[in-house]
């Protein structure tokens, strides 16, 4: 029989206490970095809680956006000049110098829009509901969410309380 999974949220008054609790959870309950998440109200240096480095592909988004924006800018400028083929001073209808600025702005707009989309996508936002969470996190508490099997719940809770958790809240597993 497969053990059911459950999540626990421990609230710690300081980052040091949360980091200590995570060390204890790894040593005594075998909790791996894949099984925990840390919730804070401000950014901490990467690796402060022993979490895995964040893997992302954000840098692809601005490049893809810039290419799309460049294409749209190119089509827009060529298209409008072809639609209104007004010859001025005997110069070619499709005038490249006059197109450059609109193409440039289109490229940058595409890059910015795709970057925003990339940030949301890579941050896994928007999320429907906040999941296992506590508003006290925004008051400075550090939340440690551990997703574990139901047979380890009591051990995880005990380790969190021993490490100084101000409160431990049980909830459904991550992703549900």
């Amino acid at each position, binding site marked *: 029989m497969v053990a059911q999974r459950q999540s626990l949220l421990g609230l710690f008054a300081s*980052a040091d206490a949360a980091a200590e609790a995570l060390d204890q959870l790894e040593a005594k309950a075998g909790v791996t970095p894949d099984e925990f*998440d*840390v*919730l*804070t*109200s*401000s*950014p*901490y*240096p*990467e690796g402060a*809680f022993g*979490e895995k480095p*964040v893997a*992302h592909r*954000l*840098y692809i988004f*601005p490049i893809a956006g810039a290419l799309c924006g460049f294409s749209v800018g190119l089509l827009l*400028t060529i298209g*409008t*000049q072809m*639609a*209104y083929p*007004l010859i*001025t001073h005997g110069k070619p209808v499709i*005038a490249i110098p*006059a*197109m450059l*600025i*609109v193409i*440039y*702005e*289109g490229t*940058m*707009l595409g*890059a*910015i*829009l795709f*970057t*925003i989309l990339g*940030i*949301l996508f*890579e*941050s*896994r*936002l*928007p*999320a*429907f*509901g*906040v*999941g296992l*969470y506590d*508003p006290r*996190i*925004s*008051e*400075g508490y550090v939340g440690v969410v551990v997703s574990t099997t139901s047979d380890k719940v009591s051990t995880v809770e005990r380790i969190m309380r021993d490490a100084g958790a101000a409160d431990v809240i049980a909830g459904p597993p991550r992703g549900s």
Partner: protein
Amino acid sequence: MQERPVLSDRQINRELLDFVLHTPIWFWGVLLLLGLVFGAGFIAVVYLISTGLGVWGENWPVMWAFEITNFVFWVGISHAGVMISASLRLTQAEWRRPVTRAAEVLTVFALATAALHPAVHAGRFWRVIYWVFPYDFFRGIWPNVRSPLIWDPSAIFTYLTGSSLFIYSVLIPDLAVARDRSTGWRRKFYGILALGWRGNPRQWRLQTLAGILLSGLILPVFVSVHSIVSFDFAMALVPGWHSTVFAPYFVIGAVWSGVAAVATLMAILRFLFKLHNYIRPDHFDALGRLLLVVGNAWFYFFILDFIFGLFAREETEVAIWQARIFEWPFNVLFIIFLLTAYILPVPLLMMRSVRRSVTMMFLTSMLINIGMWLERYILIVPALQYKQAFQFSWSTYQPQLPEWGLVIGSFGLVALGVLLFAKIFPIIPIYEQKESQVFAAEIKVGKATVPGVIRE
């Protein structure tokens, strides 16, 4: 940065969300006052639309005057925000923390206000649609899609969209705090806008990268926008405008007036919202030092423009500079402009006591912007007013009451926008303040204890 009060997360939440979650009585008074100021501009525009462009003092050849001056002024102000925010984020300057959002918000409202001006200048703004879908095409009136005037909307649209999204993306963590600290409809409202933010390491990492990446993307746009605004003039064949120095001259002028506007705004925010713990004299000191650099750079370009105008000894150029400096009423305006844009503020900013005085920084920054508004006016109107060869119809320009109304109303609109934003969203980034507490530590250097900042 020697001053750093130690604040708990709870205190930061309480102080920075106080105005968002509670409405003091003075808010309604200020709202009414700004509403009246904006109303003056609104009435002026309604009168213009119902009566026609004749109610303005513009006449051939001065068809651009107060409105384009105001347009350039507000585009200039809008440059402060992103320039300060983006460059300080990229350089990880610690003093950016209380400044960035107010500067970014000023960018968005100043730019949106500026963007209204060309539409208002059209007289019947619904005719703007004909520029996009020219119905007169079959009658032989063709739009010139290669005109430099097409570049402006594309640049402003990119800058406005980029700046607005920039603000929103870095606002998400603070919206989550507002969600956690509010009840009822506010909780739902902030909950929707926060998009389910939890604050895990992945989200914070992406948030930090967002600030850097978007700063890198938006800085070139910021430079391009005011360069393109300068092309509105420099690409024309009007003597006095047709100058190769205009693009950098406009950009640096925009930064000069924009950073000054941020200093003004910071002083007002500190006074209104009692943000003494967050906006401190050392922040004004830093802004003052930045202003000193930018002010001198701007003056260098002003001198370049002046020398380029006179060096070729071209008759019309010399005549326009003569009109700017010696002829009534531009001579008086020119003296006021020089005094307020450079001669008074720069020596004042050299004094540490002035830079660290909120009142003095407020007054100095106001002086700069009076000067920079006049700079644009003096740049535009005398050049148009100069009677050129084979020009048989010309007049002098006298601004009329509806034009004054539009200018005053635009100030009301920007101030109203910033006030309403500050009422709905935290105007100082909450998570940035908390981060500064996390990354700060007291360090002993000999017998002195100084705050040190850990940097990733």
